[in-house]
């Protein structure tokens, strides 16, 4: 078992710096998710840890071992590839056993561990088949089994579920979580799917443009995004943003209404008198009110979408659009004018220019 430490890791492709001095400490046995849009550098960071890319600066440590200059095979890692990379010319058994055979382990042990891995992923009936005779989901299991039987201290997964259809992805997600609880290897999981990240991660490191912009437990990432990008990236639908301006008394005028920030933020707002500011709030933290009261804004309902577990409303507030999620039995129709209540404790205020959260 081993923790992982990235120390100011830099990676350059041609003239582009794709990893910009990233430092990250991952605890022993932790499930860490690297989350970000495509091109943010998350896969490259994972490949630097695997040794498939050479870093151009900084160090990579696994446990106490500096692995920066080691070949992939000397790093004692296992990996699940996005394409699975299950060898087409080998049977399921030989695929799962591949890493063990490379270590020249005794054949009895190879057999035992391979069967164990196959059992864990329900592949026992397919051991003699070739990958081409398997479904996508089964091939994915082979890739996971091949990695798990290595019993490596560090398990890397590069978007392992992205090639599966939606239903299968849901099943495998839960299965991966169960597996991690069972084997407890330090796991780094790369994904662009925020639901996967929230579901699987002990912690999530959100990456943007070659940097880690926030690293925290999933609910903190969701409730307290560090900036506008993260709020807008995580959540379905994502966080709503409204323009506002700070008043002399520390309240914020949004459209024709005034919203009072949470009391803990009063000092920060006093210094921002007259400045523009961004109000961020999640669709489920807005409630409908029948009359104007404190912290309400008038809104016009444009679209009502009943989605079974909730109703999704698209509303116009001033010139801006926001999404609101309400209970499925809430009576509401399009073209209605309503009052929206903003819970000050649930609002994430952000600097209008930089998009950084105000704390």
């Amino acid at each position: 078992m081993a923790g992982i430490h990235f120390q100011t890791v830099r990676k350059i492709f041609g003239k582009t710096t794709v990893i910009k001095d990233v430092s990250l400490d991952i605890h022993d046995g932790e499930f860490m998710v690297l989350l970000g849009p495509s091109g943010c550098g998350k896969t490259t960071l994972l490949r630097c840890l695997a040794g498939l890319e050479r870093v151009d600066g900084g160090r990579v440590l696994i446990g106490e071992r500096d692995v920066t200059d080691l070949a992939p095979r000397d790093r004692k890692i296992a990996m699940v590839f996005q394409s699975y990379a299950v060898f087409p010319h080998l049977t399921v058994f030989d695929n799962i056993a591949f890493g063990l055979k490379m270590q020249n382990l005794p054949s009895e042990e190879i057999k035992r561990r391979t069967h164990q891995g196959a059992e864990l992923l329900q592949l026992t009936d397919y051991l003699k088949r070739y990958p081409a005779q398997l479904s996508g989901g089964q091939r994915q299991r082979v890739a996971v089994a091949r990695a798990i039987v290595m019993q490596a201290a560090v398990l890397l997964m590069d978007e392992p579920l992205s090639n599966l259809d939606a239903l299968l992805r849901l099943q495998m997600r839960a299965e991966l979580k169960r597996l991690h609880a069972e084997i407890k290897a330090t796991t780094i999981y790369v994904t662009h799917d925020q639901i996967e990240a929230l579901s699987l991660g002990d912690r999530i490191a959100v990456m943007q443009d070659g940097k880690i912009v926030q690293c925290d437990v999933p609910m903190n990432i969701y409730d307290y995004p560090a900036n506008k990008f993260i709020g807008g990236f995580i959540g379905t639908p994502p966080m709503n943003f409204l323009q506002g301006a700070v008043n002399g008394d520390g309240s914020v005028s949004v459209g024709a209404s005034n919203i009072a920030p949470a009391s803990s933020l009063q000092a920060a707002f006093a210094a921002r008198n007259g400045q523009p500011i961004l109000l961020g709030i999640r669709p489920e933290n807005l409630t409908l009110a029948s009359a104007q009261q404190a912290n309400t804004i008038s809104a016009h309902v444009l679209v009502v979408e009943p989605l079974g577990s909730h109703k999704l409303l698209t509303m116009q507030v001033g010139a801006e659009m926001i999404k609101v999620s309400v209970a499925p039995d809430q009576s509401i129709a399009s073209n209605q004018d309503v009052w929206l209540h903003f819970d000050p404790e649930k609002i994430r205020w952000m600097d209008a220019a930089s998009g950084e959260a105000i704390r």
Partner: protein
Amino acid sequence: MRSKLESLLPYSLLAPTLLFVTLLIVIPIFQAFLLAFQSADGSFTLAHFQKMAADTSFGDALKFTFLLLIFIVPLQVVLALMMALLIHTRFKGHTFFLYIYAIPLAISDLAAGIAWLAIFTERGYLNSILNQLGILEKPFLFLSYQNLPAMFGTIVIAESWRATAIVMTILLAGLQLIPRDYFEAADVFGANTLKRTLFVVLPLLRPSLQNALIIRTIFAFQTFSVVFALAGRVIPVMAGESYNWYVTNRNPGVAAAYAVLILIFTVAATWFYFKFLKTSAAEAGYD
């Protein structure tokens, strides 16, 4: 009407190729068979084959054709594989070496044979260099009927130089078809370069190896120009004998008999490779 035109379109597009193949390949093959099995009065005969087999050079031609094949094909495939693997590592400057390796592709086989003649002949480049380095006092006769092994060796070298590039091209193309993920997975799961080559690269390259072997073996049965340039008829080969019977002995019947024999060997070799190097559909990764 429109659909009828559309259904004719594929055939009209295939027509030029079909015409080309018919005129230049199918008809000549048919004529060769006629020549080989027809007597002067047009009746069926095996006389040409009997004459071919009775000729003193026939045994030697068979022997040397197969000897060249046995020496050249494995040597070329191993060399070409090493070159292709080297290029595939994409080391700095690999394109330069790719061009160097590909030069022989652009040179006709007779020209290549003559170039190597200039190297190996009594006062050729090789003897001059060895002489100037003080290794040899007088020229070594590489191309003498009194030293058949040396002569045979020069042919193996010249043929290998000339035709390894085509094998390398096929293998490199095959390597580039293999997704890099497989190589990376092998690396991550603990394979060193040798094990990765043996257990991952070569099995995945098998379809390309099969193609390369087939093409190379077919060409080896047709070896002619390079041998002719370096050894004349001292080392006879089947294609050379065919030419000799046609041009020198003015006997198209025996020449055609040789051609038919080469065809039979070629088909047999191809069948052999398909039978014993065949990748099952499942192993090849097809659903």
